[in-house]
């Protein structure tokens, strides 16, 4: 395999790595050229999407890195979400006098890590990719240095993230010890004739570590605090792309190397999924802060995605991918709305802040309503279709009880989604709301437009793409 061939198989990663290094140099010499750096960052992410679309498929670096449709599908979504984060975040920080050229670069590096997560086919590359992404996110969470809450969020995220890394590493070492290798293929071979207890033990630890990244219960505790403290555009980023990356990674590990042990890991996932839906629905009932509320909403959403994954097979993985993709759009749009709303420079973050919003900012209120109803899973918004895929897969895999439990959870969660709608539409407005910044409002409208009605057309393309991706992930 020639170096050119190898480079082609890792082209998006090389592109992003190169871009982040170059931008770092640009920033170091021209610290004021923040907009230039941000613009170039967005361009390189978009270029990466282009590269993903045309690059060859195959395995490189002794099988450590795999380029397949599964990776390509997820990466395209992740890079677009990352680009949106830069678009949303850079002006946001600029408005608050916090603009620094490191922000786009950190997003680029996180995107690089997430891209690698999608391609990792070896425990070592898996670990490196996760850490690359996580470290960037820790910094991003604390990016608003002057804000105590932001710093607290970063620190908490870091400490707990370190703990989860420890748990995961322990699992990795156990798997290595019992399977005799780190590559997924090797593990698969070891598990093929019945998994030993040790390997499964390690697998549980590995799943726990990854569950932290996707904030599945009971590893969700950091989520509300971090979401509340971290800067809004960063939260929008956190809640979307990294979770998709981690879910894809989880899907690849579980189906490629632990495929024969489906019956075992399915049970762990179902337990986590139902717990997540329950926690997300119940704890959300009493939240007054919208960012915290959406933290719980995202916990519940991961529960649905986990049910899809637990269904296993191409259908289950496809459901997970469709669900996560629609969820990423949904959550990005919602946080774009929050980023667009401020009263005398102070962001609107609580229910009380947005009361009567429809009378002052009808456009954004409608967009937020769309996102809330989509989160609730109301037809015809995109959330419904995601849940439809998940439940369909779950039922055909014999997981109907889990689907029913999740459905009950979404009934409970309806309370807070509808409460948001009620507060915005029926309550009395208070105080003047600042004119929304164009980029945030534009992004929010675009996302809302996608949630309905574009999704109906988009699904026609999304469905086969996700199926191809799922087939690639499952068959290795």
């Amino acid at each position, binding site marked *: 395999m020639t170096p050119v061939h190898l480079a082609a198989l890792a082209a998006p990663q090389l592109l992003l790595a190169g871009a982040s290094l170059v931008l770092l140099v640009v920033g170091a010499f021209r610290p004021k050229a923040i907009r230039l750096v941000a613009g170039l960052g967005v361009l390189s992410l978009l270029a990466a999407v282009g590269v993903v679309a045309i690059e060859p498929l195959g395995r490189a670096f002794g099988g450590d890195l795999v380029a397949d449709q599964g990776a390509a599908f997820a990466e395209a979504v992740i890079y677009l979400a990352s680009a949106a984060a830069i678009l949303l975040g850079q002006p946001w920080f600029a408005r608050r006098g916090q603009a620094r050229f490191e922000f786009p670069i950190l997003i680029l590096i996180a995107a690089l890590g997430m891209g690698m997560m999608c391609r990792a086919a070896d425990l070592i590359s898996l670990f490196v990719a996760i850490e690359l992404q996580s470290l960037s996110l820790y910094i991003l969470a604390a990016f608003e240095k002057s804000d105590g809450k932001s710093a607290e969020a970063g620190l908490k995220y870091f400490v707990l993230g370190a703990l989860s890394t420890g748990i995961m590493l322990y699992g990795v070492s156990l798997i290595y010890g019992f399977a005799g290798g780190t590559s997924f293929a090797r593990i698969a071979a070891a598990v093929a004739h019945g998994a030993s207890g040790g390997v499964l033990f390690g697998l549980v630890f590995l799943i726990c570590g990854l569950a932290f990244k996707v904030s599945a219960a009971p590893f969700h505790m950091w989520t509300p605090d971090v979401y509340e403290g971290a800067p809004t555009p960063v939260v929008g980023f956190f809640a979307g792309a990294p979770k998709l990356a981690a879910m894809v990674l989880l899907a690849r590990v579980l189906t490629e190397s632990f495929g024969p042990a489906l019956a075992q890991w399915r049970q762990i996932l179902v337990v986590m999924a139902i717990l997540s839906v329950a*926690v997300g629905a119940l*704890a959300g009932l009493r939240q007054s802060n919208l960012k915290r509320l959406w933290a719980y909403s995202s916990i519940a959403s991961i529960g649905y995605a986990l049910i899809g994954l637990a269904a296993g097979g191409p259908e289950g993985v496809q459901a997970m991918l469709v669900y996560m993709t629609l969820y990423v759009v949904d959550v990005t749009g919602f946080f774009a709305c929050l980023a667009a709303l401020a009263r005398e420079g102070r962001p609107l973050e609580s229910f009380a802040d947005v009361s009567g919003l429809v009378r002052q900012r009808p456009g954004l209120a409608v967009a937020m309503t769309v996102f809330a109803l989509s989160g609730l899973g109301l037809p015809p918004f995109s959330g419904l279709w995601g849940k439809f895929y998940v439940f369909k897969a779950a039922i055909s895999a014999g997981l109907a009880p889990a689907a029913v439990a999740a459905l009950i959870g979404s009934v409970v969660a309806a309370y807070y989604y509808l409460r948001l709608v009620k507060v915005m539409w029926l309550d009395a407005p208070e105080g003047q709301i600042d004119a929304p910044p164009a980029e945030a409002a534009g992004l929010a409208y675009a996302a809302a437009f996608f949630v309905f009605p574009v999704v109906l057309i988009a699904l026609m393309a999304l469905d086969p793409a996700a199926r191809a991706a799922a087939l690639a992930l499952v068959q290795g």
Partner: protein
Amino acid sequence: MSPQLAVTLIVFAPLAGALVAGLFGRLIGHRVAQIVTTGLLFVACALAWVTFRQVFGGAWPHAFTVTLAPFIHVGRFVSDWSIRIDSLSAVMLVVVTSVSALVHLYSWGYMRTDPHRARFFAYLSLFTFAMLALVTAADFMQLFFGWEGVGLASYLLIGFWYEKPTANAAAIKAFVVNRVGDAGFALGIMTVFWAFGSIRFADVFPLVASHADLAWRFGSAQFRLMDLACVLLFIGAMGKSAQFLLHTWLPDAMEGPTPVSALIHAATMVTAGVYMVCLLSPMFEAAPVAKGVVTVVGAITCLFAATIGLAQNDIKRVIAYSTCSQLGYMFFAAGIGAYPAAMFHLFTHAFFKALLFLGAGSVIEAMHHEQDMRHMGALWNKTPITYVVMLLGTLAITGVGIPGLDLGFAGFYSKDAIINAAYVASATQGTAMFAFICGVVAAGLTSFYSWRLIFMTFHGHAKWGAHEAHGHDAHADHGAHGHGAHTPHESPWVMILPLILLSVGAVFAGGVFDESFVGGDRAGFWGSALSATTSGTLLDQIHHLPQWVVLAPLAVTAVGFFAAWYYYIAREGLAARIAARRGLLWAFLYNKWYFDELYDAVFVRGAKALGDLFWKGGDKKLIDGLGPDGVSEVSYAVGRGVSRVQTGYVYHYAFVMLLGVAGLVSYALWAFR
């Protein structure tokens, strides 16, 4: 004009009037609304008489059906909007349109100061349309439509003065009591469809003979479907025709304007039940149990309502109970199988009862909206025309006539035919003797309370003018009428003219139509519209009766007259003293056998208690408590618990994570055994 077009016009002219007056009343003004509705009604009335003549003259087919449009076609359940014309409906067309047209005209005077006249006339015409749809129905579905339509119009008109709480209450009472009957009616229709697979009269009647013995087994009990269906249908008739147990709404319905009482609650709507039983005579003939029920209920009502009428003081309530009682006659006539006699009494009753009501309205008008007869008296020379027509109406209702010459007022022919038929039937039917006795006694009571009304109102000493305090249930009848001079005065000609026309009917309707309805011509007159199985023998024999039977009604009528004369003329004031003593019997009659109190205690308060039980105990505590409220309570509490774990301390979070790992690993070890 073709028969089809004529009958279509008869039915739809009132609807057109109702729509014009109802939708555009404000636009065109009261006067135009009055002219349009009344004009259309007179057109319908003229056409109805033409139809009557042509159908019975033989120029038109004796029975035909015009199908207008499909209504419901679901599977075998087929119903069309149609107009069925036969002897029965031709008679009803005449009765309904004539009385309605005269009442429309009368209302010009009676309602002349009301600010909502256009609405009033719209309702009147709407009622007429619904009633015509009812009597021309060719299947049970349209019958039900008309049934509910007249119920709606009745509700709207009783509550016409909606500012009055009593009128609202009466309207609601009428509607609710009728719901009870309608439930039975609807079940009856379902039973018919179940038994016959069709609801068209033309399909059902020929099948009665072959289906007569169909039975429905429920547990160990067995019900003949014919009896079941007919009893259920009769329950509907009991509601609409205010029969014993379901009669309570009719006296209260007098809260409506007096023309409404005359049209709906005397001449037409309340007779719908009788009409229905006669219409369904082929079915009832196959249902002996149902016939017995009809006879007994009719007889009880006839006697019971008459006793209450003895003690009432409100002029309209007396006539209302009288109506109730006369309907009882019609029902037991139908019950024993003398359908032509029932229809005959329905026909004559429509004239003299509408006359009495409108006459009472004229008296009320003369007395400036006083309805209490104790505050009247000596009106005969103040309102001479009203007095004369009321007198004629009373002679008609009491059935005065000379048996030997066969000459008398309308009631003489129809009521005596019923009583005589009951006597004949008592030879074969056990219940008929009971009906005969009730009928004769009630005839005496009828005479007493009718003459009592005349004496209290028109004779004796004037009890008006002396004191200002005429009862203020008074205003009762009219919201916006100013108080002018307090001398009674004769009513305007628009009110007098209908009275005169109706009194012509009250005097001659019996004699003129006796031969056709119940006499020798009846077979040709009714054709196949009424079942002749029983009525044939019954009516053939009423002219060959013992002399005492023939004379009995007349004798009790005379007794009633003299008793009334004694109490209210010869010993004026005696009756008031009896009332003042508040004896048991008097209180029992005055309080209408305590039916309202009984129903209030049992049904109204019982239903409320039951509702409270289900609402507070069942719904709020049990269903809401364990259901929505309980679940949300629990959800909220769990949410609070979960939030409380969210302390913000990193070591707590780490602890939870480690617990999670430990828990999942334990679970895995257990699950992967």
